[in-house]
């Protein structure tokens, strides 16, 4: 198994700041923003992005988590998963601009499940998607609004995202 680093710690940081700027540009009314990360690493990224956006916009931006386990379409084949917490910040999501945040976008099924989960919680004004890495091979008509890095891969490869808060180190690797 060969692992190849494609994003270093400083790459990740720079990429996230750039995404934060993009989000603000796309939604000047930053007070309507709510960032919801998809566990596990999406949550870390959502909180970081919220921090950067707050720095840029000068107002606090709420962030939380949206667990999608119960909405997955592959429960019967993917084996058992214990659900992670869903924490929706106090203002809720009704009539707000929700930005879903995840580390890797691949088939699109996780995001599809996240959209279903959102409908059970409320009715956002807008839903956008921000991902650190888009590795292609979509199986559903889903696209990210904000992409950190496009990494074309083939099915035999795996993308491994490591974040300090979860893994102790920070980098993105492609593993054969």
């Amino acid at each position: 198994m060969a692992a190849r680093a494609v994003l270093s710690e400083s790459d990740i940081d720079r990429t996230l700041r750039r995404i934060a700027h993009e989000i603000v540009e796309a939604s000047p009314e930053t007070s309507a923003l709510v960032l919801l990360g998809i566990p596990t690493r999406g949550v870390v990224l959502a909180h970081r992005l919220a921090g950067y956006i707050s720095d840029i916009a000068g107002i606090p931006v709420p962030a939380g988590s949206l667990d999608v386990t119960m909405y997955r379409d592959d429960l019967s084949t993917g084996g058992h998963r214990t659900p992670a917490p869903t924490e929706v910040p106090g203002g809720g999501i009704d009539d707000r601009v929700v930005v879903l945040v995840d580390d890797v976008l691949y088939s699109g099924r996780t995001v599809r499940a996240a959209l279903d989960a959102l409908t059970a919680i409320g009715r956002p004004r807008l839903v956008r998607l921000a991902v650190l890495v888009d590795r292609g091979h979509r199986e559903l008509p889903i696209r990210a609004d904000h992409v950190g890095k496009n990494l074309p891969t083939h099915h035999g490869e795996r993308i491994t995202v490591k974040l300090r808060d979860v893994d102790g180190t920070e980098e993105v690797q492609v593993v054969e």
Partner: protein
Amino acid sequence: MKHLLSTQELDVDQALTLLDTAEEFQAVANRQVPKLPTLRGVTMVNLFFEDSTRTRLSFEAAAQRLSADIMTFQVHGSSVSKGESLKDTAQTLEAMGADVIVIRHPSSGAAATLARSGWVDSSIINAGDGAHEHPTQALLDAMTLRQRFHSEPRGALLTGLSVAIVGDIVHSRVARSNVFLLTTLGAKVTLVGPPALLPQGVDDWPVHSTFDLDDAIDSAPDAVMMLRVQRERMGDGSLISHKDYVRNYSLTRARADRLPQDSIVMHPGPMNRGVEIASQVADSSRSVILDQVRNGVSVRMAALYELRGGQA
């Protein structure tokens, strides 16, 4: 986990997984659409050889919230009361598509017999078998304790909490399931009852026991769990007189007032107000009886998910 039959068989990790998952499911109840698609296509059957509206409805609510299909099979007036065996009933249900069978039966060990028999492939949840176990009841009791004594219940154990269980212990599956689950989670359990209602060999259980409720109350337990007194047994005069029972083992206002400020009062229901618990105590702010009911649905959702979510 293929079956949920007893708390004696649950280790700490399994118990925590069930409780933590139940916490997540609790949150669903507060959503705009309190329903999940997770068990769509899964069929749960309530196989009740004993009457129980509350437990049955609780399992039905749990299944509905997970979008599972439900069949209910009450024995009274059914083919079983005409002599059909447990084996044939279970196989008929499985042939009709049951994925999970929730069984309540008057005979201790019935759920285990069904699970180990090889007669059916379904997952089995024990909803109460004779005097043996009622694992989902103990789980909802543990969940209630966690919520009351930990601001962040997820991942929390019950280490150091003291719980007194009072009443007809020997005939109680709720007592047995709680003794083993609460002890696994680190709590200290004291059993209180008259000699005829404490089990023979209780000294081998990981609990304290006493005949004196006042003593137990004066030891400042964090929770007091009152068990329903089964009136049928009071009729057997050889056990204990009704008057003596109420005098010595009832949670009166006076006794409840002696409990520490933060202590809670629990009851699996249904209650005999005025017998094992005074009305005012049941309605007081100490009482978490309704929380227990609410947690029951979440815990049963967690059980259904653990057994069936993640399998074809």
